[in-house]
C-alpha cells in the first residue's frame, strides 16, 4: 500500500488487491486505515519515480506498437494507433497483446480503443474488462452509460455534480450547456466535447533520446505530394548517414508529421531485414504518402528509426560477376501493403497429417534446405476443410466405386491406396484412436482426387466411416 501527504493529512494513494479486499481504498486517511488493519505494509508514494516509470513504459510502447505515445498521468498511456494497428494484425490483436505483455511483467492493464482520447480514457478505467474496442463512429453510444468520473474532472467537481443528481455522461450531455458552464466553469463542457470528438485535444508524444532520428522544420508550410516526397527523400538520406555512422540498419521507420493546426500524423513502415538503402527506404515511405492528410500545411516532419539492428558494411559487387538483385526490397514493399503475415514461405514439418505438414515462415527467413518425402502422391490443391462426399465403397479397405461431390456423381475408374494416417495422439486426446485412410482416385474423364475415409473400416473407435474429399491432383 502507498501513502502520501495531502496537506496536513496522510492519505492512502494506492492499495493492492489484498488491501482492497480488506476495504481499504485510495483516498482513505492513513490513520483510519491503520486503525482498521493494524499490521499494514506502508510505503511512501513517489510520484516523480512513478512518472519516470510511466515514461519508460511509454517508450517501450513506441518501440513495440506505434510511433505516437503520450503519458496520461498518473496511471495511463495514450497510444495513437491510427495507421499502425495493421502491423500487429488488427486492433483486437494489438490490444490483447498489450494486455498479455503487461500481465507478464506484473502490471494489470486495461485497454480501450476509441475515436477520441477522452472516450478511450474513460472506457479503459470504467469498463470492467481488459479490452474494449469502440468501432469508428460509435463513441457517443459507448460513453453514454459511463459515470461522470470518467470525464477527467477532479474529485470535488464530480462530487458536486453527483449531489445534483448527475450520474452518467448521457445525463450530463442532455443538460443545457449554459447553466452548467455558469455554475461549474467551462471545464465540464470542454471535457464533454473532447470525449465526443467535437473539440481537438493536445497530444504531446514521447520521444526517446536514444533513437536515431532526423527532423526538418519548414519556414513555409508544405502540402503538395511532390514536395512531401522530396523532403522524405532528404530526411531518409540524413537518417541513413547517421545509421551508417552507428553501424545500424533500420527495421522500422516512423515518419511523424506536425501540421500547422497542431495535428499529428504518423506513418510506420517495417522492413523484413535491417536496411540502410536510401532508395528502398524512401520508396517504402512514399508508398504510404496517400494516407497523409496535410490539412492547411505541414510545418515539421521528423523521421525516426524506432527499431534498429546492427548492419555492417557490405561489399557491393565483385569484378566480372553479374550483380544479384536483392529481393528484400520487394518483400518489404509487398509486406507493408498486404500485411507481413500475408507474405510467407513454406517449410516442411514432419507430420503425416496433410494440414500439419506445412508451416509458414517469414519470406526472408534463412532457407531450411528440407522438403517433403516424395514417396507418396500429394495433390497440388488442398482444401482447408475436407468436403464430405457421398460414396459407394466396400469395407474395410476398398476405394469407392463412385462418389458424389458438389452435386456431380463421378465413377471411379482407377484408384490407389489406402495410405493410412494415424492421429497424433501426443497432441490431442481426441486423436488417440483416430485413423484416416487416403485414396487417390481417378474418374472416367481423368480428373484425379484425394479422398479419405475417417476410420479404418473395422473399429468404430477410429472414425465414423464418413468419406471426405481433401484435395485435387494435377
Amino acid at each position, binding site marked *: 500500500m502507498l501513502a502520501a501527504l495531502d496537506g496536513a493529512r496522510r492519505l492512502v494513494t494506492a492499495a493492492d488487491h489484498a488491501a482492497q479486499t480488506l476495504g481499504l481504498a485510495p483516498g482513505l486517511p492513513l490513520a483510519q486505515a491503520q486503525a482498521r488493519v493494524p499490521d499494514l505494509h506502508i510505503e511512501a508514494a513517489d510520484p516523480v519515480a512513478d512518472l519516470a516509470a510511466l515514461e519508460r513504459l511509454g517508450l517501450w510502447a513506441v518501440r513495440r506498437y506505434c510511433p505516437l505515445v503520450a503519458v496520461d498521468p498518473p496511471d495511463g498511456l495514450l497510444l495513437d494507433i491510427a495507421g499502425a494497428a495493421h502491423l500487429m494484425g488488427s486492433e483486437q490483436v494489438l490490444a490483447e497483446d498489450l494486455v498479455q505483455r503487461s500481465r507478464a511483467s506484473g502490471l494489470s492493464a486495461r485497454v480501450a480503443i476509441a475515436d477520441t482520447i477522452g472516450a478511450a480514457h474513460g472506457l479503459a478505467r470504467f469498463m470492467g474488462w481488459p479490452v474494449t474496442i469502440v468501432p469508428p463512429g460509435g463513441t457517443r453510444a459507448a460513453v453514454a452509460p459511463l459515470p461522470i468520473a470518467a470525464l477527467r474532472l477532479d474529485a470535488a467537481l464530480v462530487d458536486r455534480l453527483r449531489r445534483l443528481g448527475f450520474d452518467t455522461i448521457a445525463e450530463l450531455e442532455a443538460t443545457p450547456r449554459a447553466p452548467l458552464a455558469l455554475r461549474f466553469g467551462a471545464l465540464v463542457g470542454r471535457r464533454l466535447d473532447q470525449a465526443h470528438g467535437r473539440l481537438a485535444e493536445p497530444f504531446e508524444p514521447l520521444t526517446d533520446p536514444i533513437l536515431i532520428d532526423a527532423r526538418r522544420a519548414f519556414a513555409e508550410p508544405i502540402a503538395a505530394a511532390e514536395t512531401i516526397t522530396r523532403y522524405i527523400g532528404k530526411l531518409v538520406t540524413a537518417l541513413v548517414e547517421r545509421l551508417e555512422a552507428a553501424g545500424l540498419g533500420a527495421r522500422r521507420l516512423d515518419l511523424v508529421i506536425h501540421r500547422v493546426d497542431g495535428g499529428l500524423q504518423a506513418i510506420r513502415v517495417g522492413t523484413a531485414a535491417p536496411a540502410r538503402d536510401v532508395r528502398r527506404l524512401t520508396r517504402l515511405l512514399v508508398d504510404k504518402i496517400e494516407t497523409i492528410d496535410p490539412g492547411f500545411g505541414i510545418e515539421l516532419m521528423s523521421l525516426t528509426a524506432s527499431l534498429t539492428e546492427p548492419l555492417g558494411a557490405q561489399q557491393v559487387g565483385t569484378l566480372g560477376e553479374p550483380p*544479384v*538483385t*536483392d*529481393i528484400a*526490397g*520487394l*518483400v518489404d*514493399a*509487398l509486406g507493408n*501493403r*498486404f500485411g507481413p503475415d*500475408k*507474405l*510467407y*514461405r*513454406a*517449410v*516442411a514439418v514432419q507430420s503425416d497429417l*496433410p494440414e500439419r*505438414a*506445412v508451416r*509458414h515462415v517469414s*519470406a526472408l527467413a534463412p*532457407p*531450411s*534446405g*528440407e*522438403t*517433403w518425402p*516424395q514417396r507418396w*502422391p*500429394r*495433390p*497440388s*490443391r*488442398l*482444401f*482447408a476443410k475436407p468436403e464430405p462426399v457421398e460414396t459407394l465403397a466396400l469395407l474395410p479397405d476398398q476405394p469407392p466405386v463412385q462418389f458424389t461431390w458438389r452435386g456431380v456423381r463421378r465413377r471411379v*475408374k*482407377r*484408384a*490407389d491406396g489406402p495410405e493410412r494416417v494415424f492421429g497424433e495422439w501426443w497432441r490431442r486426446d481426441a486423436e488417440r484412436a483416430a485413423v484416416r485412410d487416403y485414396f*487417390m*482416385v*481417378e474418374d*472416367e*474423364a*481423368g*480428373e*484425379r482426387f484425394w479422398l479419405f475415409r475417417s476410420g479404418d473400416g473395422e473399429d468404430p473407435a477410429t472414425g465414423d466411416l464418413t468419406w471426405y474429399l481433401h*484435395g*485435387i*491432383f*494435377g
Partner: protein
Amino acid sequence: MGQAQEIALADLRAQIARLEGRPHGSAQALPFAVSAVDRRLPHGGLALGGLHEVAGGSLGAVHGAAAALFTAGILARLQGPVLWCVRARDLFEPGLAAVGLHPDRVIYVEAGNDKNILLCLEESLRHGGLAGVVGEVSLLTMTASRRLQLAAEASGVTGFVIRRWRNPAAAADFGQPTAATTRWRVTALPSTPLPVAGVGRPRWFVELIRSRAGECADWELEACDAQGFVALPADLADGSLAPAAGRGRAVA
C-alpha cells in the same frame, strides 16, 4: 527451305525485334526437352522474359490443379526465387515440391483479390531478381496483360498468370485476346495404364492456344516428373497410336 530464304527470314525477324524495341538474339527460351513440343515453339522453348497464361480445362478451370503443376514444373527448371500470388490459401506446397519446386525458393503472397494480385505481379515483374512470378486471377484484360508483358520484357523475369474462374462456364472468358506471349490450357487425362490396379503417371492434354510468332498446337503428355520435365507417353512416342486430334480447339 533454301539458304537464301533462311537468311531473308532471319533478317526479317531481326527487323521485327528492332521495331519491338528489344535487342535481337536476347530472346531466351527454356526448352521442354520434348522435341515434339519444342519444335512447335519459336526459339525452341518457352520464351523467358514474357508473360504466359495457363488455364485448366473442364473442372480444372475452377481449381487449376494441373495448371499449377504445369507452371511449377517450368519454374522448377529455372534458377532463383519465385513469387506466387494467390487469392486465398489452397495451394498444397508438398504437391509443388513433388515436381521439383523446392519450398525454399517460393515466396507466397496472399493478395486477397484480382486487383491486388495484378498489382503485386506487375511490381514483382518490374523489380527483377526473381526467376518467375505467378499470379492466379480470373479476369485479365488486354490493358492489364499488356502492362505485365511490358514489365516482363523490361526486366527479363518470366511471368505466369494462372486463370481460375468461379465456375466452368465463366471460362469462356479465356477466348478474349490478351497480350501474353503464349497461352496454354492443361486438362487432366486418364493416367498411363498400369498392368496392375492403381493410378499410373498422370497425363495431360496440353494445348498451346496462342503463341506469339508461332502456331497453335496440342499434345498428349505425361505430367511433370520430380525434376519438372514433361514427357511424351511411351505408347505415342513411336507413333503406334494416333494422337488425340484437336480436341477443344474451337474456344481459341
